[in-house]
């Protein structure tokens, strides 16, 4: 180490320590790389514009990528899990998805953005925001379950009805067989009729 004056050294150390331990002016975080929500945001906005398989796959992929970064942070992690679950549901059910599902995607993302962009936010407020999202998510889940039961019943009835019909080509074959049989019987009857007609003519001649 150089040999500066003791006073100068003490001064430098104190300044450095003040900076290092200063609460009001924190240095950029080095413990975790800063995680950006921008990519997820653009995916959510694109879903708002047009719902496509690609958009939903990208959304699910991005939530998967973000989740490890929030492994220790329960609240954003919960919201990401919710976002992924709704995304998967929409991708699976497409147009048959519950109409509120897209609203959930928007709302969950808005809450996620709010709690991650404002680190100074009070923890209890964050918990309240997440609790509201959980409640709304559960409500949607119940609605989806309720919707699913009548739909399943309708599908079962439809399946039963269609099961009574034989496939088209078999039906044609059967019809041809019936037609052939009828034709042969008609031909036999015609022959018989001709024979009877001849017998009747010969009897009249006698």
């Amino acid at each position, binding site marked *: 180490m150089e040999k500066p004056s003791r006073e100068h050294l003490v001064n430098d150390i104190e300044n450095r320590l003040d900076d290092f331990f200063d609460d009001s002016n924190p240095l950029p975080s080095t*413990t975790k790389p800063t995680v950006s929500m921008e990519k997820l945001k653009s995916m959510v906005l694109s879903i708002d514009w047009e719902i496509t398989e690609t958009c939903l796959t990208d959304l699910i992929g991005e939530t998967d990528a973000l989740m490890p970064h929030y492994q220790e942070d329960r609240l954003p992690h919960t919201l990401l899990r919710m976002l992924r679950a709704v995304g998967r549901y929409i991708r699976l059910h497409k147009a048959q998805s519950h109409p509120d599902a897209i609203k959930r995607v928007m709302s969950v993302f808005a809450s996620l953005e709010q709690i991650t962009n404002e680190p100074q936010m009070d923890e209890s407020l964050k918990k309240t925001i997440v609790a509201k999202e959980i409640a709304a998510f559960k409500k949607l889940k119940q609605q989806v379950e309720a919707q699913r039961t009548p739909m399943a019943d309708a599908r079962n009835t439809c399946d039963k009805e269609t099961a009574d019909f034989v496939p088209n080509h078999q039906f044609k074959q059967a019809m041809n067989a019936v037609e052939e049989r009828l034709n042969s019987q008609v031909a036999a009857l015609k022959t018989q009729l001709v024979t009877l007609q001849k017998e009747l003519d010969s009897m009249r001649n006698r």
Partner: protein
Amino acid sequence: MAVIHIRNKEVQIKIVYVGPGRGGKTTNLEYIFSKIRHRILSDMVSIKTHGDRTLFFDFLPFDLGQIQGYRIKTQLYTVPGQVKYNATRKLVLKGVDGIVFVADSMDVMREKNILALQNLEENLSYYDIDLYGNFPVVMQYNKRDLAADGIPIMDIKTMDQDLNSRLRAPLFEASALKGDNVISTVKKAISTTIVSLQDQLA
């Protein structure tokens, strides 16, 4: 003794928190860690027993940044306070550059504070370090907040007489649990240690 890499312009200092068992050494480090965790790459390592007592040591390393062209790497340690773990205490003190003595302000801890300081003196002497020979020490009288809860604590004069009359170390009244003066203590310990190191090298 500090590790100094002249070529890399890097200095590594080791500061150990010592004091009687349940005095608040680990709480000090936990508070410091909570304040700096967003700006350090490392984590705090604690090895505890089932009863949440420090079995081996707590370890909190961090890079303080540059001071006069030298990168200062600081390592904070605690030792187990329980009397039976003296071998561990001695081991952790190896290569120590500075001490924070965390004394428990409770009346009932008076004797244990004195015994802990005597034990520190003995253990340092094992490494040819004279506690009373200008070795960098910072004194912290912890748990001052307990008075507000009606728990009898010693007055500063008594603690000074018992612990700091010979040392004349910089002194902080603190509450590690609430964080009062915890950062002031560590700042003083780091600066005293670096200045002492500079004096030794000069």
